[in-house]
């Protein structure tokens, strides 16, 4: 894959995407803070003091963050609107594909670990990722050997980490 230069991208960054995403994220934080505060009701005496203080503070701050853009005196607290140039990863097709690839690869790791066991899954993951990204064969081999060294040499032999052997190996 050719590395794109975002500066030369034909697709302009979306001017409001991250600002909206910011609002949604703040909304999620408000919901989490409310749930967090409600959770303290079940705690025995003393165990809920700090969660109540912290949860209350998060709730107040998140509300300030949420309404800040529309309330002039709060604007200097919530800061400048988010830099929209970062939104280019969602609007530029090449960058979006890269983002999907890396996020998708993260979803694959637990499945690989379940099937092959982690010491094998990690080198397989690195080899697969570099191959999909069309890296030169030498780079694929070197990076796979490197992570195999870390995975087997350091984690298994040196640190003696216990591993599940992987579902596939139980079939044989």
């Amino acid at each position: 894959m050719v590395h794109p230069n975002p500066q030369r991208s034909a697709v302009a960054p979306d001017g409001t995407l991250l600002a909206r995403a910011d609002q949604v994220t703040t909304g999620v934080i408000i919901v989490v803070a409310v749930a967090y505060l409600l959770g303290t009701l079940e705690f025995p005496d003393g165990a809920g003091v700090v969660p109540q203080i912290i949860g209350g503070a998060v709730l107040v701050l998140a509300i300030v963050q949420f309404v800040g853009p529309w309330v002039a005196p709060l604007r200097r607290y919530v800061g400048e609107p988010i830099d929209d140039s970062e939104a280019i990863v969602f609007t530029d097709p090449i960058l979006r594909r890269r983002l999907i690839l890396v996020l998708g690869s993260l979803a694959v790791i637990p499945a690989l670990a379940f099937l092959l066991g982690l010491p094998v899954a990690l080198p397989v993951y690195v080899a697969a990722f570099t191959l999909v990204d069309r890296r030169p064969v030498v780079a694929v081999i070197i990076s796979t050997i490197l992570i195999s060294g870390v995975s087997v040499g350091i984690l298994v032999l040196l640190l003696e980490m216990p591993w599940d052997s992987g579902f596939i190996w139980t079939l044989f």
Partner: protein
Amino acid sequence: MPEFLIEVGATMGKGFLALLEPLSLLFLLIGIIIGLIIGILPGLGGTVTIAILLPFTYAMEPNAALALVLGAFSAVSMGGSIPAILLNTPGTGEQAITSLDGYPMTKRGEGARALSAAAAAGVLGTLFGVVALTLLIPVVRTIILAVGAPEMFALSLLGVLAIGVLTSESVTRGILSGLLGIMLSTIGYDAITGALRYTGGSLLLYDGFSINAITLGLFAVGEMIYIYSRGRSISSNAGVSIGGGLAAQYVGIRKGIADTWRYRGHVARGGLIGSIVGLLPGMGGTVAMFFSYATAKQRSKNPGEFGKGSVEGVIAAESANNAKEGGSLIPTLAFGIPGGSAMAIFIGVLYIVGLPPGPQLMNEHLDSVYYMAWSLAVAGIVGSVLGMIIAPYVARLATVSPGVLAPLLIAFAIGGAIVDDRLAFGIYVVIGAGLVGYWLRLLKYSLAGITLGFLLGPVVERQLFISLSAYGPEFLLRPLTLVILALVLLLLFRPILARLFRRRSRVSLEV
């Protein structure tokens, strides 16, 4: 007084002797090499370096673990200056200031001179920072005697909020970051009351989330998603040359060292600025380098040369950048208030090796504190010399594609995330933390704030519990606690105060 000095001298000697142990020296060297390599890779600085090394510290003897981490941390800035000077690609973001003059020098065929000037200034800067650290330790110890649980509570709170606010562009996002970190830390078994909190009945959450998984996820995985998806931050400039043949390079290296001596005033000022800036939480290397660079330009006989390839610019920037490491260790070790993001994670290392920061460390493990100071000093010297030697050979690492770097570091982070609790659950936590880290990074939240909140959350809770039990709510009225809480308020009302100051200065200008 002489007895006190003898005691300090003996403890310093003990710290130095501990560093001379073969195991410590070996891990210091390994740390330096790792630091140089990671420093060279664009986009990865001291923070990611310490995050990556964190899992290994579990299985290591404390002194070896500290040598490994501090060796790497110290060498990162030298590593970062190599691509900054040779490829115009700063290894760490802050070293863009080194590129300003370093790269034009390389284009003129003076790469060796610029590198050796950066290395020599870096050595002197590191020594400056370590001397500042060493001199201030006895002073800090005296202050610490006045610190009780109420003050520790206020200091921990100040640390969490300060790092959040100072590393984020907005006050609310900065504070939210720190508080979200504290929220995360409350999940699991509560050591004070014995209650289980927010576990949802799952045994996996009984001990809460692991420091490794959270730190590696937020920093290493989040950073890799960012770097890979942007497809940049990697130098496309493969023309790595430090200028001329071997003889010319030797002349260049000698010139660089001579330049550093010639402009020793810039080194001293840079060292002082770096040490002071390092002391202030959340200020970071960029501020130190910028101040030092601006001061050097102001005092230079050739200010017009700055930005066009002035060796003075390289010297001023690098001396300040290296001096800040020693300075930032002081608040980190004494009060658990980190000087920057990397120090926030270093606090995690201190907990892992059984040396939690604070009065106990400064009073009962002073030899370990001096051991850390010596490690920084030796790593600074060895790292700079080694960096200069290997520079032309390893600078090509900066051209490594994110397509190779991202899977390697993600795989490494996943392996490291399960080292401490040895549960596959860590895989899900590190991936989740990586996604959250990437998203919150885009929205300008402070990842360092979240990490520090997570690390210091239990400290805040324990000290609050002790303070309330011992003094009741009146603990808030203790003089030192009041002063620290006033600083917290100052931090929270920073935007209003800044506006007031701006208005006043505008009025006085108009008058």
